């Protein structure tokens, strides 16, 4: 089946399930994706009745991880007394992982959240396309067959989807939410573990310390500390982020490299074993930093040491939030 045909099928299935959920009053509202106003993007939408369901779309340009809207709770998603509404959430695999993570970490009540699962066929690598198009305005992007068709005022360029899919989507092993039918309508599966591949990280690890340092410095140098990555991340839900603590101040907010580096260092450490590999951080960065690459390194470490992948079920806590007597701690005893 072509990507275009898959999208049509996915979109229809999302709308069917959404209609069913709303008509049967299983949920009060549904969070999904709708047509954006710009090419190469889509905009999240909150659906409140059946008539709005046809606004839900799936078109490989759905970047925001919708679990972001579950925690911290949006004021718009509460009733007049401030109680959480029952929410249906359109869930590609990584949204499903985020929902599981939030449930395991006791940030959401799964009785009030229902996923609309489907077999995700990935997102377009929009920064790669924008980079190749350069200084010409893109006016329309669509998928025809297996090609991404990018149009401007008097030009058109085609990109094969298989090459211009997000790097993370290329290696994704959780395309369908890992959940049971009690929490997920539509498609779901129950995964115990997965064999993630980290070829890109292996390649990076082979570099010299200087090369690694140079790479990270070059990437992060342009950061404006706008915190879009934090805001888009479903796992970054602290009421008060460490950078915003000001009694006392923990962290200087200048744009000197030390401060930028400290922010990203601490944020990625906080995500060790918690990142759900949705790539939202990289796709929202206004200056094009591949933030997910840093968290992926930590994912690899957690996978190797603890054989853990986040968000596969709603019960197991990430290793860094958990303590077991049999945890290996040889690193503490190492002498050199």
């Amino acid at each position: 089946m072509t990507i275009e045909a898959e999208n049509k099928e996915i979109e229809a299935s999302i709308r069917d399930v959404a209609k069913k959920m709303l008509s049967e009053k299983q949920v009060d509202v549904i969070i999904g994706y709708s047509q954006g106003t710009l090419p190469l993007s889509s905009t999240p939408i909150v659906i409140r009745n059946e008539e709005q369901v046809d606004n839900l779309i799936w078109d490989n340009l759905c970047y925001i991880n919708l679990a972001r809207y579950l925690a911290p709770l949006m004021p718009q998603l509460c009733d007049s007394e401030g109680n959480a509404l029952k929410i249906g959430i359109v869930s590609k695999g990584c949204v499903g992982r985020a929902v599981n993570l939030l449930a395991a970490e006791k940030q959401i009540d799964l009785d009030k959240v229902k996923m609309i699962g489907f077999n995700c066929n990935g997102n377009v690598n929009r920064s790669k396309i924008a980079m190749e198009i350069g200084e010409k305005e893109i006016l329309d992007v669509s998928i025809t067959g297996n090609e991404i068709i990018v149009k401007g005022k008097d030009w058109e360029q085609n990109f094969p989807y298989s090459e211009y899919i997000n790097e993370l989507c290329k290696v994704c092993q959780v395309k369908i939410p890992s959940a049971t039918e009690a929490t997920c309508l539509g498609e779901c599966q129950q995964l115990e573990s997965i064999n993630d591949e980290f070829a890109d990280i292996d390649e990076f690890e082979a570099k010299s310390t200087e090369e690694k340092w140079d790479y990270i410095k070059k990437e992060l140098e342009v950061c404006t500390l706008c915190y879009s990555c934090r805001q888009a991340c479903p796992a970054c839900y602290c009421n008060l982020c460490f950078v915003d603590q000001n009694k006392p101040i923990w962290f200087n907010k200048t744009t000197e490299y030390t401060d930028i580096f400290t922010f990203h260092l601490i944020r990625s450490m906080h995500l060790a074993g918690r990142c759900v590999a949705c790539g939202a951080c990289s796709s929202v960065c206004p200056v094009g930093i591949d933030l997910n690459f840093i968290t992926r390194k930590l994912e690899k470490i957690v996978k190797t040491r603890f054989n853990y992948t986040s968000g596969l079920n709603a019960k197991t806590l990430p290793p860094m939030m958990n303590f077991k007597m049999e945890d290996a701690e040889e690193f503490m005893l190492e002498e050199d």
Partner: protein
Amino acid sequence: MEQKILKKEDIGKLYNEFSSEYKFYAPIKQKGNIVFERIENPDDIVLDYLNSRIPPKSILFPQMEVLFEYKLDDKDVEITDRQDLDEKFMIFGIRPCDAYSYELFANFFSFHGNWKDEIYLKKKENTTLIGIGCNTPRSTCFCTSVGGHPFNKENMDVFLTDLGETYLVEAISDKGKEIVKKLSWLSDAADKDVKKSEELAKKAEESFVTQIDVDTIVKNLEKSFDHPVWDEISEVCIGCGSCSYLCPTCTCFDVIDETDQYNNKGRRVRIWDTCQSCLYTLETSGHNPRDTKIQRCRNRIMHKFSYYPANYDLLGCVGCGRCIMVCPANNDLRDHLAKIEKIGKEEKEEKAVV
């Protein structure tokens, strides 16, 4: 008005004329985005760009700026003011919307009673703008709706028009006339060049697809502080600060002191702040009048389209469309303004039905 012609391959020559006297900034490509940077190699300059992803506001209003340095002992404080304010800046290839944003900044930094922000104003005084007209405005641009124009020359010292093979050079201000005089090797422009530039300006003006009725919006906002439209506008906002950080007119800043560990010397710095941050307007008591994203989103739009007109009789938006381009949730300002514009209309229609 003097009109000259600059050959495209002579940009390096122009750079060489001024690079020792001025800190020379121009658009370059960085990680796929156009940004204004201090130029070391004129070959890096990119002039056929749509608009820079990051506005050039940071040249005169850096994200982090030292205000002064200090030393403390038991009796006294010794303050060292900035010593570099006489440096001259040249900003080459700036667009009219961004050039106008410097005027808004100058207004903000000099409006409040007798206090004047010497640091900003001095830098602005020492800045020469060589701007360039916008041949191909983006579909997200709407400068013509907020009093601007893709070929607005008003705030420039020298104005360039990309004629294809060459640039038409016009000296606008007295400062600009001096600059053009220094470039004695420029050739004279022919009538056909001037005519072509006029045609390009007209073509650019006609190409705008976004039209906004700003007068109605300003009027509607006066009585819409508690309107439910803000719930809608902020619904899918993820609360990052990209829209304001990349806004050429967002002026808000925070002031912090950085001291050494003994607390006896340090520096006072101002850094960009954004109304989208949870620390913005947080009071010492712990109360924050803008505690939710509904209030924060309202503040951003109110500031530009209501408080600015009320306080300064100006609009706080130059219509560059950067916030539209950059929003990770594609929460489009044009949609917000359309909703605000409709506020009165709906009520009128309802009344008519009754």
